[in-house]
């Protein structure tokens, strides 16, 4: 039925629910003023009808009145917690505001109500893709990218025992490791000083299952390079030197 037919039907029987289709038709046509008049007229007769409120909320959003639209949709959800239109509308509203978590939550609910609704499905996929892209962009860059073992065997800590970059594999507690390493570095510095050995440069140690190399890219930091025992100490030192160069470059880039 076209808009004119709907308008005639609405004029003939103002109490019918045809105002919902007429209002939506006018809205899609871009005649927001007429659509709003029809929606308000319907709301006068059916103030508690969720579909009427949903239509009115969409018109409010079209009219750049998002806070009022949100309020109306929220009243819809108070009456019908699974109202698909309200969840879809709020999903779009939160997406436009950049609140992707809230948008996903509402769209997920809308999709659960009607998994076949292609418009909701597309909106959900769009928001999820956007959220993933932002997450990837926000991820801490791996300053050791391209180096052997960059993902699990290099850890840069500051002299206060805090992690600056990198991670260790296995079950190692990275934060505790950083604190322990800082304590070891302080002891190495003290030892070098008290024994008149000059400045501490690096330390390499062999344990039952791992070889560990410690060096200082700068005076305030320490780089831990760990590999299993199959990597001999000499090669470990070589790898550590390359990582040390990368860490130093990154640290210099962080200076204001």
């Amino acid at each position, binding site marked *: 039925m076209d808009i004119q037919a709907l308008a005639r039907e609405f004029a003939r029987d103002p109490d019918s629910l045809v105002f919902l289709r007429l209002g939506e038709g006018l809205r899609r046509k871009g005649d927001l003023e007429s659509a709003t008049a029809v929606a308000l007229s319907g709301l006068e007769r059916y103030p508690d009808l969720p579909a009427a409120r949903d239509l009115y909320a969409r018109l409010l959003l079209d009219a750049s009145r998002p806070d009022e639209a949100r309020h109306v949709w929220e009243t819809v959800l108070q009456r019908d917690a699974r109202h698909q239109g309200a969840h879809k509308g709020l999903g779009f509203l939160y997406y436009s505001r950049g609140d992707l978590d809230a948008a996903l939550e509402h769209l997920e609910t809308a999709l659960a109500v009607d998994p076949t609704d292609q418009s909701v499905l597309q909106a959900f996929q769009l928001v999820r893709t956007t959220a993933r892209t932002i997450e990837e962009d926000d991820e801490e860059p791996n300053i050791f990218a391209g180096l052997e073992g960059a993902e699990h065997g290099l850890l840069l800590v500051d002299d206060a025992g805090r992690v600056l970059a990198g991670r260790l594999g296995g079950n190692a507690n990275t934060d505790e490791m950083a604190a322990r390493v800082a304590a*070891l570095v302080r002891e190495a510095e003290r030892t070098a000083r008290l*024994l008149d050995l000059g400045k501490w440069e690096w330390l390499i140690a*062999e*344990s039952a299952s791992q070889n560990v190399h410690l060096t200082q890219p700068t005076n305030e930091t320490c780089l831990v390079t760990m590999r299993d025992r199959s990597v001999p100490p000499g090669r470990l030192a070589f790898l550590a030197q390359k990582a040390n160069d990368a860490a130093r470059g990154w640290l210099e880039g962080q200076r204001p």
Partner: protein
Amino acid sequence: MTHQLQGVLDVLTRVRGVQGAMFVARDDGLVIAETLMEGVRGKALAALAASVFGKFTWVSGTAKAGEPRFLHMQCTEGAVLVLATNQDVLVVIVTDTNTNVGLVRLEMLRAGEVFA
């Protein structure tokens, strides 16, 4: 026993660059036996080497890397090497900068066999 330990340490100090060799109690850093060149402060070396090794033991434990065995701390004017034996005794060496660390390490392993 003391004579035997001293003999083992004497062998270690014959390696070029080695300025001192000691057996040190791992727990408290006390000297068990030592052979030192003049100017090397034995008690300080023993205590500090044991302390550094103890700190590394914490690191190794946190990293789930297993029991620590050997540590080489390189400084601009020398190095400290520590080897753990089977009996809570450390073999501690201090060297200058011109030392074949690989050779010293082998001698340290031999020396540690005294406590096997």
